[in-house]
Each structure stands twice: as C-alpha cells, then as structure tokens.
C-alpha cells in the first residue's frame, strides 16, 4: 500500500516547510515525520513519498535516509534502546551494561526481541559523558546506569 501522511501530520509537514527558504531543507525533518508515521522506519515507499512531496529525486532522498544512522531501513521493535559504547561511557562500564542488556533480553546488539518489543543497539557518544554510562530509550535518556536501573527500564518496556 502506498504511504501517505495523516491530516494532522500533513499540517505538521506544512509547518516544517514554512521554516525554510526551499523544500529540500525540509528533507530530514520530514523523513523523521514520515518515519514516525511508518512504524519507525523509512521504506522505499516513504522515500518516494518524501521525494514527491519535496520535489526531489528519490535517489537524493535515499542517499539522505541511508546516510544518517537514525533512519531505520527495516521496522524496529516497538521500543528502541541505544546503549552508548564510546570511550567515556566505556570507561564507566558500558561494556557491562551492553552485555547485561543482551543477556536480559536474550538478543545481540542490533537485534529485536522475538516479540517485537525492543530493538537493542549501540550508540556512538550520546553527549552524556559526565553521567556515564548512558542509554537512550526512544526519545529519553537514562544516565548513570547500573544493571539494576537498566532492568527497571527494560521491565517497563517489556510490560508495555
């Protein structure tokens, strides 16, 4: 089925366009908007939709969507978890947090739980080095992580 935005999101789309002197500049915010409306991933249908709406080549939109790590190429789990792996977090034990998450969820980094609840990934520096180790869950940060605090977060996600 062809991808289309809801009326409410169409309004948001128009508001985004009004911020910029041309349509191309809306490419990334509009990809975010469409990704949210498409179970959090950018399919080729979404790419073609954005290209048409912004009068861009679909190759350009594909190039943009695949350049940035936060546009998903396939449907992720209901919740997305990114554990920071970069140096400051690693110094404060992110490796342990990563393996704890993997063990707790029974999956490896990059995978989604079989029930489709959680996609687990590593992140490059989340700019939370002073409160390391840190992770991002959907749009929220969780910092100064311990295995216990991670469990509390994951439990909530699994129950949702």
């Amino acid at each position, binding site marked *: 089925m062809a991808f289309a935005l809801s009326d409410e999101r169409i309004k948001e789309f128009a508001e985004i366009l009004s911020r910029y002197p041309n349509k*191309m500049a809306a490419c990334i915010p509009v*990809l975010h908007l469409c990704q949210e409306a498409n179970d959090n991933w950018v399919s080729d249908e979404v790419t073609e939709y954005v290209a048409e709406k912004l009068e861009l080549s679909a190759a*350009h939109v594909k190039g943009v969507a695949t*350049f*940035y790590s936060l546009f998903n190429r396939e449907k992720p789990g209901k919740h997305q978890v990114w554990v920071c792996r*970069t*140096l400051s977090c690693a110094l404060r034990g992110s490796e342990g947090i990563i393996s704890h998450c993997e063990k707790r969820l029974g999956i490896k980094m990059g995978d989604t739980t079989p029930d489709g609840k959680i996609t687990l990934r590593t992140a*490059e*520096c989340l700019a939370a080095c002073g409160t390391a180790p840190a992770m991002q869950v959907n749009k929220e*940060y969780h910092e100064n992580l311990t295995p216990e605090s991670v469990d509390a977060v994951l439990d909530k996600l699994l129950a949702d």
Partner: protein
Amino acid sequence: MLKRTDYLTKNYGKPDGWTLAAYEAGGGYRGVRKALMMSPGAVVEETKKAHIRGRGGAGFDCGMKWSFMPKPSDKPHYLVVNADEGEPGTFKDRTIMEQNPHALIEGCIIGCYAMGAHTCYIYVRDELHLSKERLWAAIEEAKAKGYLGQRPFGKTYEVNIFVHTGAGAYICGEETALLNSLEGKRGQPRLKPPFPAQSGAFGMPTTVNNVETLAIVPTVFQLGGDAFSKLSALHHLNDGGTRLFGVSGHVKKPGVYECAVGLTLRELIFDLGGGVLDDRPLLGVVPGGSSCPVHLPDEIVNIPGERFEAYNGKCILDIPLGVDTFRGAGSMLGTCCAIVMSDAVDPVLALQNLMHFYRDESCGQCTPCREGCGWLERVVNKIVAGEGTMAELDQFHEIATNITGSTICAFGDGAAQPALAFIRRYRKNFEDYINNGAATQTRSLSL
C-alpha cells in the same frame, strides 16, 4: 588558576531553571537590550574585545568570525548554531540547551543583529530530544514576550529562530557538513573555499557558531567585552572570559564546571573532578574531546615562543587550558572536556574504542578518511584479537600520517591524531598484545 563562575550555570539544577522567568530573574535578556541600542558594527567590535575563542573545538575568535560576514545586501544572511554535540567526551552544550536555553536564544538574537541575519537555525543532533523540546519552548516563550519576531525588544529588526534536527551523524558537527545537512542533503563536508561567510546556508552569507560560544555572548554585553575578557587568566593571549569545562571517565565527580579560562587539567581532574577514582594513578588524559591527543600525566611540554615562556618545561597538567597554550604545546584544546583514564585502563582497548567510532562516523566522501579509518580500526582489532603482527604495528603510524592533511575536512586529522598519540605513548602496550598475549595488560576499560 581555578576560579569558578556561574554566568551560564546559575540556574542549573533548579526547578524550572530553564524557563524565561527564571532566566530573567537571574539577569537574563539584559545583554541583548544593551546590544540592540548599539550599531551592529559596534556589537561586533564589543564581541571582539571579549576574545571569546570558539567553544566548539577550533578556538577561532567569535568576534573576528562575525566580522567576516559581508555588509548587508539584498541577500539574506544566516546565523546557524552548531548544536550537534557528539565529540566523544564532550557534553557541555547539552547542559546549556536543557538547563539554560534562553542564554542561547539571547545570544542568537545578538548574533543575528550583529551580522545582519534575520533567521537563525539551531542544528541539534536528533538524540537530544530534551534539548530540542526546551529550545522550542524557549523560542515560544520569547516570541510571546515579543523578544523574537518582528520587533524584538521594540527594535525594528526581525529575528526568527528555528530548531533543526539532525538524524545521527557525528560528521554534521563539521560546519559545512552541518550546512549540507541543514539544506536537506547528505552530511558531507563541503570544499572550501568558499567559506560559509561568503556562501553558507542556501548559498548565502552564513556564520556557524557553537552553542556555548553564543550562549556566553549575553554575558559579554552585561559586563562589557573587555571586562569579560579579563576574567580569564589568558586575557593576554586573547583567550578571554569564562567557559564550561567538562570532565568524564575515571574521576570521582564527573560533570560540567563553569570557570574562568586559565584552569589547568590538574585543577579540573583533582579539584573539580575530585581526583581519580579509587585514588588510582593516572594513565592518561585527553584534554578536549577524543580528537585531541592523549597525554601522559608526567608529560613535560616544550612550548616555544616568548609569550609562552612561563609554561615552557612544565607538566602538561599544569598548563592553563587555552587555545594557543595547548596548540603551542603540540596538543589541542578542543572542547575543554577532558577524558580521564586511570591505570586500570588498557590503552589498546581505549584506542580500539575510538577507532571504531571514527570508522563508524566517517562520511566516506574522500579516500584517505573513508579507507584509512577502516584500516586503522582493522589493525587495532587484529592486535586486540591476538592476530596482529609487528609489521602491522610498524605501519600503524604511517596509515594515520597518510590520512593527516590529505582530507576534505578536519575529521581525518581528528581520527589520525588519537591514533598517533596513543601509539606514540603506549607502543609498549601494543607490543605486549602482539608478543606476549597481552600478559601484562588490564584488558579492560572500566574499574
């Protein structure tokens, strides 16, 4: 010189400290009122006197950068804020956006006015959802008060600010990659010249400033440029005012601390950071984000030149953290957010961690960086896996040297510098991996 200040941080941690009311109660939006009474040229001159060295890592003088903008014409000018904070070890801009967003908004109004810009885009990395939320809220509050829009503070000078979101790419912190990303393109750095002041966002004259750089501008207009500059112990080196210092890794009290410029690494680590975790010995410290070289705690600096005489022959930990002092010492100040490693750290694994980052984040546009970053990571991975050879170790610095200076943007140098610095200072550790199965290594990064 340790001198704590609170120009940017006074509302940090307070309930609703990020609101307009809290900001104004603390003296906010006074600087912009003063600035708008002046001519735009005078605003630039006053900013020059403050000697704000760019807080994003390059350390270029803010007022000087503003003065490169052409005279107003029928072309629109843009101010673009680099809020793509993502340099490993750096976490200060996020605190401003989350806890003191109005300082940035006020700085943006002053900057727009000074440079003939009516539109400002704040490019925030996508992960910082709270930052974006707080910035949008601050913009709405400022609009409602009439501080933004057609007539800010009654002055007929329209200013509009928009928050623009990235989508996960460290390279977009490079200012021309950021501009491409803002324009809806792949975040690949542009060829320079032309520089953004001639042809930046949408091909128009543009200045890109770091969050902290702009956020401190209102303070400049409250205190006066010269008075602000003199807060710094490095005023004589044209490195003025106060800045945010971050410390992370193996310290007891990691965090962001606002101080006068001139703080030393020793003060940052031991006084502000509370010392090394478990009071262990230091293995090394990276002064300002992962692209800076790592230093040994007992490294004596050779810093030539008359103006640096006072620092020559001192320990790196005792050199005031300044743009020129660290450059002179063959290091780099970067973002002033230090990463501290105790002797529990295996430097081979630390470099592996960073090389993974640079390979992952290279945009892939130009050959030396695209291929070189991947190669550097491979060699370290092999060494860590026990498959490395001495021949490969001997080539390692050559790969990094070949990347250096051959790329379109500074990312290549940013990846090569830590590689060169780690191999130079910790070669024995790498050799131990290759020859002795890492027998004497901690094989760990954390305590």
